[in-house]
C-alpha cells in the first residue's frame, strides 16, 4: 500500500490586502513554496503557530482556494487549476473537518440535514435512503438516532465535532482534511475524537491531512509531520524523527512550549521572544531569525536551503544544518 | 407723489393664501387662475372684468367696435405711469400688442391676437386695432392682455416672467419660488383709495393648512376656502365667508359617436339618473348650483333650460326603449384629483340605480391627456365618458361653447370630447362669431343652448360656487366668477 494519494509540489498562495484608503495593495504570502505527499491510509500533520499558513494549505488542497503556483495531485489527478464545475468528483473524494465545531455547522439546520447535505449534493438517493445512511453514520461516530432532530447548538463541543466528522464520512471519502479538529475541545472529548479518527482510519483506510498546533496531539495521530513557519515548511519528516531528533530551532521551541501535565516536570523552556512577524512584510533571510534564540548573522540575509537530515525523509531548512 | 392721487392706508401687510403655486408672472403667457390673480394686483389691461365677470374699461377710457366686428378703437386714460416711471400711452399699448402678436414664445395668449393685421396709433391716447376676420371673444382677449412697461419689454424681456412692471395698485417686490410672492403698494397709482402696504401671496395646497392659517390669522384671505371644512369656522366671529357663483361647469362628456352612447335616449337616461342636488351636497359639500344649461349662469347669453330632474323610472324607460333594459357597462375617465375621484364615484353610484355599471379609470394628467388627444380620428377614440370641468370668462361665450361642441373641435383638434357633431349648431356658432351684433348673438346662443341641452352630449352636473374666507378686519377684496382675486381696494377696516 504505497499509493500516493496526495502529492503537493511547490504551491504558493498570496492574498492581496487592501491597506489604508490610499489604494496601495499589499501582498500577503500566506503559503510560500510548500511541498509534501501522503500515502494512502496514512496521516500527514501540519503544525505551526497561528497564521503560519496551515489552514491556507488545507484550503488549497481542498480547492476552496486556488493556488497561484504549484501542483496538487489527488489520486493521480491534477486539480490545482480546475474550475469549480470540474471539481465535483474530487469533492466527493475529499472532505473537510473544520477547526471550529461551533461555527462550521449551520446553526439553523437540524443535525440530520447537516449530515445528509453531501448526499443531497452528490447523490440522487431518496430521502429514506439518505436517512438510513445518516442513522448508520451517527452510530459510527458515537451518536444516536435521537440526536438527529436537534440543532447543533444543543450539543457539546465534542458531540458537535462528531457531527462534523459524520458529515465528512458520509461520502466515504478517500482523503479527509482535518483542520484543527480537536483544538476547540476538552481533553476528555479530545481523546474520544482522536481515538475515533484513528479507528476510522484503520477501518476504512482513510488518509488524513491533519492540521494542528498541538504537538502532543500530532504525535499521537501522525505518521509524518511538517512544521510550518510563516508560510513555509521549515522541517518535515516521520513522526519519530521530528520528536526524538528535532533539528530546527523552531521545532525545538515548539516542543518545549508544550505544557506537560506533570508538576514535577516543570522545566526551563525555550520561550520565544515576540510575536509572529507580519506575513505582509516577512523578514528577509530565514523567516525565523527574528525570534530565533540561536540566530546568526547570515540568517538575516540568506534564505536557508532544504537539507535532508537522515535517510528517512527528514528535511530541514536551517543554516545550522546546511553549514 | 402725495398729490390728490396720494395713497394712504394702513401700514399693515396682509397674506393671501391660495391653493396652488403661481406659474409665471408674464401676463401674456399665463393660463392659470392663481398667476392671473397675482398679476392683477400689479398689472392692468385696457379692459377688465367687474365683479360679475363682465367687461369694463380699465386703462381705456372708452372703446368702440366697428359694425363688421373687425376694428377696435380705444381711447386711453391719461396721466398714468408704470411702476418704473414710464408713461402709459398709445405707444406703450402698441408695444404690448405687438409683443403678443409676434413673440413666438408666448404660446398661450396669442389667441385672437394672431388675427390682428394692424395696430394704428391714432393719437397719443388713441389706438386702433384691425382684425383679419371677426372674433367675438376679442374684447375678452383685450381684458386678459395686461399692459407691461414698454421699457421692460424692450430692454429686459427676460425678467417679465419673474418680475413684471405694470400700472396696477401694487408693485412687485419679491418672488421666492414655491414659497411666496410679495407686492407693495404703488403710491402713484392713478385711482384713489386706501390700500394696505403689502400683500404676500402664498401657495398653500393643503386645504386643512389653509384653514388653519385663516384661523390663526397667518392669512387674511384664503381662496379657495374648502367647503368641507366650513363647519370648522362656524361661530368664528373673526372670519367672514363669502360665496360667489362661478363660471366653472362640472359635467361628464359622453362620446356621442360611440355605441351605445350614440343613442340620445341613453344620454338622456343618464341625465335623468343623476340627482344634481345630491351631487352638490356630496361632491361639493353643498356649495354649487345645478348646471341648467350648456353654460354657467354667469356666462354671457346664458338661458336657463328645463333641467333633467332625477327620475329613475323615466331613465329606465329610456334605456329600455334604447334596447338596454338590463343596463350595460361603461367606463368613465378622470384625473387623479380627489374631487374628480369623488365625482366619478358619485356618477357610478347614480348610474348603478338604472342598471349601468360604471368602471372608474382615473389617470394621471399627462397620461389622460395622451389617451384623449392621442386618438387621431373619432373611430380611434377609446373615450366613453370623461368627468371634467370647464371654465371660461363670463364674457367669453365663444370659449364656453366652441371648443366643446363645434365639430371642428373634435379631438385631437380641441376639447369636443363629446364628439358632438351637429351641422346646425356648427353654423350657428360660426354665425355668432362673425357678427358684432349682440342681439343676434343672444338669439343664436339661445338656440345653441337649447339644442345641445336636449341632445345631452353631457351629463349636466353643476356649477361651482366659490368660497372665500376673509378675516373680518379686512375689506375690499373680492373674487370674481372665474376665481380671480381682486385686491385693488384691499384695506383694513
Amino acid at each position, binding site marked *: 500500500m504505497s499509493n500516493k494519494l496526495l502529492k503537493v509540489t511547490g504551491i504558493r498562495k498570496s492574498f492581496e490586502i487592501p491597506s489604508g484608503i490610499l489604494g496601495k495593495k499589499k501582498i500577503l504570502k500566506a503559503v510560500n513554496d510548500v511541498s509534501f505527499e501522503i500515502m494512502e491510509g496514512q496521516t500527514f500533520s501540519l503544525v505551526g*503557530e*497561528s*497564521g503560519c499558513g496551515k489552514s491556507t494549505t488545507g484550503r488549497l488542497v481542498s480547492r476552496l482556494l486556488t493556488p497561484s503556483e504549484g501542483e496538487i495531485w489527488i489520486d493521480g489527478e491534477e486539480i490545482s487549476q480546475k474550475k469549480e464545475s470540474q471539481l465535483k468528483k474530487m469533492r466527493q473524494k475529499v472532505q473537510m473537518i473544520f477547526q471550529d465545531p461551533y461555527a462550521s455547522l449551520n446553526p439553523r439546520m437540524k443535525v440530520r440535514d447537516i449530515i445528509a447535505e453531501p448526499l443531497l449534493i452528490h447523490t440522487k438517493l431518496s430521502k429514506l435512503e439518505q436517512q438510513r445512511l445518516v442513522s448508520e453514520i451517527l452510530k459510527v461516530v458515537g451518536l444516536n438516532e435521537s440526536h438527529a432532530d436537534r440543532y447543533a447548538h444543543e450539543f*457539546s*463541543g*465534542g*458531540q458537535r465535532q462528531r457531527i462534523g466528522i459524520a458529515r465528512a464520512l458520509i461520502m466515504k471519502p478517500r482523503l479527509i482534511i482535518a483542520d484543527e479538529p480537536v483544538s476547540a*475541545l*476538552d*481533553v*476528555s*472529548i*479530545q*481523546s*474520544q475524537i*482522536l*481515538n475515533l479518527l*484513528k479507528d476510522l482510519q484503520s477501518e476504512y483506510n482513510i488518509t488524513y491531512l491533519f492540521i494542528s*498546533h*498541538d*504537538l*502532543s*496531539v500530532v*504525535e*499521537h495521530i501522525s505518521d509524518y509531520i511538517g512544521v510550518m513557519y510563516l508560510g513555509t515548511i521549515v522541517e518535515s519528516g516521520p513522526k519519530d524523527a521530528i*520528536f526524538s531528533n528535532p533539528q530546527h530551532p523552531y521545532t525545538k*521551541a*515548539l*516542543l*518545549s*512550549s*508544550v*505544557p*506537560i*501535565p*506533570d*508538576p*514535577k*516536570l*516543570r522545566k526551563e*523552556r525555550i*520561550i*520565544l521572544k*515576540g*510575536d*509572529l512577524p507580519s506575513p505582509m512584510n516577512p523578514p528577509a533571510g530565514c523567516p525565523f531569525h527574528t525570534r530565533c534564540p540561536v540566530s546568526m548573522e547570515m540568517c538575516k540575509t540568506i534564505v536557508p536551503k532544504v537539507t535532508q537530515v537522515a535517510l528517512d525523509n527528514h528535511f530541514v531548512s536551517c543554516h545550522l544544518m546546511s553549514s | 407723489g402725495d398729490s390728490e392721487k396720494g395713497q394712504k392706508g394702513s401700514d399693515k401687510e396682509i397674506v393671501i393664501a391660495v391653493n396652488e403655486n403661481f406659474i409665471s408672472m408674464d401676463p401674456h403667457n399665463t393660463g392659470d387662475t392663481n398667476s392671473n390673480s397675482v398679476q392683477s394686483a400689479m398689472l392692468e389691461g385696457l379692459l377688465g372684468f367687474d365683479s360679475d365677470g363682465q367687461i369694463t374699461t380699465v386703462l381705456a377710457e372708452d372703446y368702440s367696435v366697428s359694425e363688421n366686428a373687425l376694428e377696435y378703437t380705444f381711447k386711453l386714460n391719461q396721466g398714468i405711469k408704470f411702476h418704473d416711471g414710464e408713461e402709459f400711452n398709445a405707444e406703450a399699448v402698441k408695444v404690448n400688442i405687438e409683443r403678443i402678436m409676434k413673440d413666438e414664445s408666448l404660446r398661450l395668449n396669442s389667441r385672437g391676437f394672431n388675427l390682428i393685421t394692424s395696430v394704428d396709433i391714432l393719437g397719443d391716447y388713441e389706438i386702433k386695432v384691425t382684425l383679419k376676420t371677426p372674433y367675438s371673444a376679442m374684447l375678452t382677449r383685450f381684458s386678459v392682455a395686461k399692459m407691461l412697461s414698454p421699457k421692460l419689454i424692450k430692454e429686459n424681456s427676460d425678467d417679465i416672467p419673474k418680475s413684471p412692471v405694470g400700472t396696477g395698485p401694487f408693485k412687485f417686490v419679491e418672488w421666492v419660488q414655491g414659497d411666496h410672492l410679495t407686492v407693495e403698494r404703488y403710491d402713484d397709482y392713478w385711482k384713489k383709495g386706501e390700500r394696505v402696504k403689502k400683500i404676500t401671496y402664498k401657495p398653500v395646497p393643503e386645504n386643512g393648512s389653509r384653514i388653519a392659517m385663516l384661523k390663526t390669522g397667518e392669512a387674511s384671505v384664503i381662496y379657495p376656502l374648502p367647503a368641507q371644512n366650513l363647519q370648522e369656522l362656524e361661530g368664528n366671529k373673526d372670519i367672514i365667508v363669502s360665496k360667489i357663483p362661478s363660471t366653472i361647469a362640472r359635467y361628464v362628456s359622453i362620446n356621442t359617436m360611440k355605441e351605445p352612447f350614440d343613442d340620445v335616449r341613453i344620454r338622456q337616461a343618464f341625465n335623468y339618473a343623476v340627482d344634481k342636488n345630491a351631487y352638490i351636497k356630496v361632491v361639493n359639500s353643498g356649495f354649487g348650483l345645478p348646471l341648467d344649461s350648456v353654460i354657467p349662469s354667469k356666462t354671457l347669453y346664458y338661458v336657463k333650460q328645463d333641467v333633467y330632474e332625477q327620475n329613475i323610472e323615466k331613465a329606465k324607460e329610456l334605456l329600455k326603449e334604447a334596447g338596454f333594459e338590463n343596463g350595460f357597462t361603461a367606463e368613465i375617465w378622470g384625473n387623479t384629483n380627489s374631487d374628480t375621484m369623488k365625482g366619478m364615484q358619485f356618477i357610478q353610484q347614480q348610474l348603478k340605480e338604472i342598471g349601468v355599471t360604471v368602471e372608474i379609470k382615473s389617470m394621471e394628467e399627462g397620461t389622460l391627456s395622451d389617451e384623449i388627444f392621442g386618438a387621431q380620428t373619432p373611430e380611434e377614440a377609446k373615450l366613453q365618458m370623461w368627468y371634467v370641468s370647464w371654465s371660461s370668462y363670463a364674457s367669453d361665450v365663444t370659449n364656453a361653447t366652441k371648443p366643446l361642441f363645434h365639430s371642428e373641435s373634435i379631438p385631437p383638434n380641441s376639447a369636443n370630447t363629446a364628439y358632438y357633431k351637429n351641422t346646425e349648431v356648427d353654423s350657428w356658432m360660426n354665425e355668432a362669431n362673425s357678427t358684432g351684433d349682440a342681439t343676434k348673438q343672444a338669439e343664436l346662443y339661445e338656440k345653441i343652448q337649447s339644442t345641445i341641452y336636449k341632445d345631452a352630449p353631457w351629463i349636466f352636473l353643476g356649477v361651482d360656487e366659490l368660497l372665500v374666507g376673509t378675516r373680518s378686519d379686512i375689506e375690499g377684496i373680492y373674487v370674481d366668477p372665474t376665481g380671480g382675486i381682486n385686491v385693488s381696494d384691499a384695506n383694513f377696516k
Partner: protein
Amino acid sequence: MSEKLLQVEQLQTEFTKDKQKIRILHGVNFHINKGEVIGLVGESGCGKSLTSLSIMGLFKGTSGEITGGHIRFNGQDITSLNVNEMRKMRGKQIAMIFQEPMTSLNPVMKIGEQLMEPIRIHLNLNKKQAKEHAISMLKKVGIARPDEVINEYPHQLSGGMRQRVMIAMAMSCNPNLLIADEPTTALDVTIQAQILELMKQLQQQEDMSILLITHDLGIVAEMCDRVVVMYAGRVVEEANVFDLFEEPKHPYTRGLIGSVPKIGDKRDKLDSIKGNVPDPSDMPIGCKFAPRCTQVMPICLEAEPTSIMLENDRLCSCWLYDHERGEMHV
C-alpha cells in the same frame, strides 16, 4: 495556614429558562489564600466560568443569579453588596481575564481608551496620568511599542498581543485577585508559553492571587499551587498540585489526566472518559459522574457522595473513599 483572601462557601447559582430555574452550581466550596495560584479544572460546561462570574457578580444580561451560599473577599460577604459597591470592587480588587481575547476587547475602541477606562475610574488619575500608567502596564506585559499600540485597534493586534492587553487591563489597578478564565486557550503554544511566563512573573512581583480556570492539565501542572476539580457544578476533588497529579483520587480526575496525550507517550489509544457531561436540566440521581464512571458501584446510582477530607488536606467527593470519612467532612 496562610491568610484566606477569598472563600467560596456553598455557592449555588441558577439560571431561569422558560420560567424554570435550572441550578448550575450546587454548593461550590473552595478558598484562595493570599499569593496563591489556584487551578480550577473540569470539562466544558461544568460551571468553571460561572463560578468566576458569580465571584465577579456579572450576571447582567443573563437570567443568572446566586441563590445560596456566600462569597467572602477579605472576610467581607460580597454577595450582599449592592450594585454600586460591587462595581467599585470590580476591576480594582478583583479583576478578570476572559476566555476569548478576540471578542473581549471592543473592536471599535482604541486600545489606549479601553485600557485607561478602569485606571481612570479606580485610581482617580487624570487623562495624562492614566495614559502614562496604561503605557507602563503595556510595557510590563511585554508589548514592544506601547506608545503606538495604545492608538491602535484590537484587530490590528495579534491574538497574543490582545491577550496581553487583556492582562494589562486586568492588572492595571493592582487587584488582589486575578481571575483568569482560560487565558490561553485561544493561543498558540509558543505564545501561550510567553503569556503563562508573564503571568507567573507578575504574580510573584505583585503578590497577587490567581484563580486560573482551564481544562488544560498541562497548564495546571505548570502554574498552580493547588487544584480544584469540578464536575457538573460541584467540586469533586481539591488537592495540592503535586498530590493531584501524583495520585488522583476521584475517578473523574483520573480520567481527565489519562486522556491527555503526552509527548513520548506510545499508547496507541488514549484513555478517554466515555460519554458526555450531563445536561444540567437532566441530571442523573446519585453521583453525577456515575454514568460515566469506570468504578461505578450500586450506591453511586442512588445517593450523592459528600466531600471527604483525605490525608494532606485533600478533599474528594466519591463513594470509593467513604470508608475514610473522618470526623471532619466539610
